């Protein structure tokens, strides 16, 4: 009994000790290097010392944070490959000598400050504050509500960040380095595509609530209006058992085109059951809607017959130098378009860092200035150079092209390009003055 009590006391003591360690002393937030040595001004999260575990011991180091949904949130299945691709991307940059700033070079470290947000805005903000003082910018901030929770901090501290979400709202934020088109324009293009290819006369958007689904539904509505089509929007919840309402709407209203913005299992329920009930129209989904494993599911035949897949860039197996470099850098992995997204999202950050380094100003202010004067980004062919326009007003700068893919069992992620980057008439003519949802 006495021994037991001692152990309990020891446990308590340990708890208090941990608590004390956590309460570090109040110090200055700026842990960046002095910046006196070279001509390059160094800010928070940039050091003269080399990154940990890098072969380039002579280079300095730029630290970028990653906040992603790595374990228990709804997007973990996509977020883990995104994060892996980004690590591979920056490793490749470092192997090629890093970011050049005059006679100096900097490696980029995206592995030291990786945090899990569990797709919860509060957690996102907490982990952001934990790494805020250590990084120059964020190589990834996953999710719209989560990023919205820190957007004011980002703006206040000039923290340039690459998002992992495609909502149209990011076009209106300077600190956010979005890549490719957003769901809004993607859906407009999907509707235009269906009008051209199948002569669609009615459109239904089956979508999740929130930025993801509503942005897409907003775009579909714009295009339907522009093309003079019938439009209905059906909001649906998460979980395959909750799709009965959506399926009923699809089957009873028989639209020519259904824009689906849900997760893969819910899409399987909607597409599979609608087809089983005799629905013959087309479905067009977005990247998060698709998962190659659906081709092994009972809904596979329905997907092969009815499903098309839009995306901001070509799928994993596409044939561009950027895709090629990505596949090579990743090596032997299970193909997923999470990798493609993570890779593509990293190019503008690289371009911005290079521009800032060239200006000799690797501080947060310097990086933000570099971003706001960035008019082209080299995506190595994944996207055209003018997709990386961050200087002009949203209506001019927004990138309106998207890719349409069709189901192809032999392709690595189950889809291959049907029509490469294109802009439909609706997207072309849309006046983009505010987010679509």
């Amino acid at each position: 009994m006495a021994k037991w009590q001692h152990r309990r006391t020891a446990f308590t003591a340990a708890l208090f000790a941990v608590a004390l360690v956590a309460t570090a002393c109040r110090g200055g937030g700026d842990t960046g290097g002095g910046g006196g040595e070279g001509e390059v001004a160094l800010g928070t999260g940039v050091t003269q010392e080399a990154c940990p575990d890098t072969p380039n011991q002579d280079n300095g180091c730029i630290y970028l944070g990653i906040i992603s949904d790595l374990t228990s949130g709804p997007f973990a299945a996509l977020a883990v490959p995104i994060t892996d691709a980004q690590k591979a991307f920056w490793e490749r940059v470092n192997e090629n000598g890093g970011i050049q700033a005059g006679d100096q070079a900097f490696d980029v470290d995206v592995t030291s400050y990786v945090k899990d947000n569990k797709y919860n805005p509060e957690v996102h903000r907490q982990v952001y504050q934990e790494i805020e003082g250590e990084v120059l910018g964020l190589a990834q901030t996953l999710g719209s509500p989560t990023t919205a929770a820190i957007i004011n901090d980002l703006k206040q501290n000039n923290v340039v960040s690459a998002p992992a979400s495609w909502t149209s709202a990011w076009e209106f934020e300077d600190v956010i380095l979005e890549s490719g088109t957003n769901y809004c324009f993607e859906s407009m293009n999907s509707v235009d595509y269906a009008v051209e290819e199948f002569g669609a006369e009615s459109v239904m958007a089956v979508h999740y609530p929130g930025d993801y689904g509503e942005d897409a539904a907003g775009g579909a509505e714009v295009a339907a209006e522009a093309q003079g089509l019938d439009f209905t929007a059906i909001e649906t919840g998460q979980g395959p058992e909750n799709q009965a309402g959506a399926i009923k709407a699809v089957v009873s209203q028989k639209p020519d085109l259904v824009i689906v913005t849900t997760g893969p299992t819910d899409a399987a329920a909607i597409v599979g059951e609608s087809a089983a009930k005799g629905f013959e129209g087309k479905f067009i989904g977005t990247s998060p809607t698709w998962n190659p494993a659906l081709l092994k599911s009972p809904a596979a035949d329905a997907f092969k017959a009815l499903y098309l897949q839009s995306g901001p860039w070509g799928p994993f197996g596409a044939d561009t130098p950027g895709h090629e470099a990505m596949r090579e850098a990743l090596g032997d992995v299970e193909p997923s378009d999470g990798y493609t997204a993570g890779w593509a999202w990293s190019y503008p950050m690289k371009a911005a860092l290079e521009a800032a380094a060239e200006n000799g100003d690797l501080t947060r202010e310097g990086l933000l200035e570099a971003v706001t004067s960035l008019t082209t980004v080299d995506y190595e062919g994944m996207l055209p150079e003018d997709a990386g326009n961050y200087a002009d007003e949203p209506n001019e700068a927004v990138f309106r092209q998207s890719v349409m893919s069709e189901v192809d069992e032999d392709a690595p992620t189950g889809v291959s390009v049907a029509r490469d980057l294109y802009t439909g008439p609706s997207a072309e003519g849309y006046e983009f003055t505010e987010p679509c949802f």
Partner: protein
Amino acid sequence: MSAPTATPPQRPAGRKPRQLSGRPGLYTSYAQHLRLLNTRPKLVAVGAILLLAFAMPWLAQDRTLSLLALACAASIGAIGLNIVTGYAGQVSLGHAFFLAIGAYTAAVLSGDTDGRTIGFGVTNVVIWLLAAGLVAGLFGVLVAPLATRLRGLYLAIVTLGLVFIGEHVFKEWRDLTGGAGVGRPGPVPELFGVNLASSGDVFTSDQKLYLLMLVCLVVFGVLARNLARSKVGRAFAAIRDRDIAASVIGVNLTRYKVVAFAVSSFYAGVAGALVYTITGFIEPTSFNLLLSVQYIAMVLIGGVATISGSIMGAFFITLLPALTRESPTILPFISSDASAPLNVFQVETVLYGLLIIGFLIFEPRGLFGIWTRIRNYWKAWPFSY
């Protein structure tokens, strides 16, 4: 609210309780026993803790302060849950719903009048904080009739239904909440013309918010402590221990259950408003089962029917994720690669679950129980075994 009107226990006039030298823990009168700080060591300890707490803004880093502020705000919510669950014995899994009511009331009152979501631009902290509490308290009163019919796990799961239905309403009512996955800005805290959420020349926003939360916690903590030792508190305890027996000795069950729910919801509303002031952003799906359960865990881990236990529990649960996030530095051999089979992020989450399990198996009376054991050990030292 009934908290401030708590009648002090009878105290014989003019007689000061004596302190015996060398026996600091000895009560010499009933009045002393019931007093807020009834022994000298308690007085000294509470004073020291308060001193340290108010010195924190100059000692700790901003991100630590932000976490501590969150813990303070959560403490108020935990105290609220402890009033209904710990003191009055009515287990509620609906706390997330009341937190949401408070958060949205505050956000609507203080919100931007021209924003995407409803807002009235009343940014004074005192006004929206009280309004948040009162509106939530009102909902508590509406829910209370259920509690007079149900007990135990039935009540728990029915209040859980409240969370699900509330979540549905919050997701659908776009003008209020912005909708799922979009959300709206949190309450804007302004006091005497100073916006507490933006950094000024003297204080950073984290310092100001921390101080606000600390002051609120002290105020609401003392009020709750007073309630607990009043007639109302004793009625709660009687209901908890055996409701029929309580009604036999003249405790009006319906009335006190309604009071318990109202006070508890008031606290939850205040806590919701404060927590989301710190977070700065409200997303309607946050108010789910997990949030309710976190508060239940705070109460259980802290200690049932104790105010200091609620605070300890809230600090534990709020700081735990921050501590488990430090696990990579303690366990460097675990891969930090998110695609590895057992990586630090999984360990973090698993550790969170395991610590809760371990803690409750180890000490079901909670942190307060541990504290009691330490105190008793040293009380009888060196003859303690």
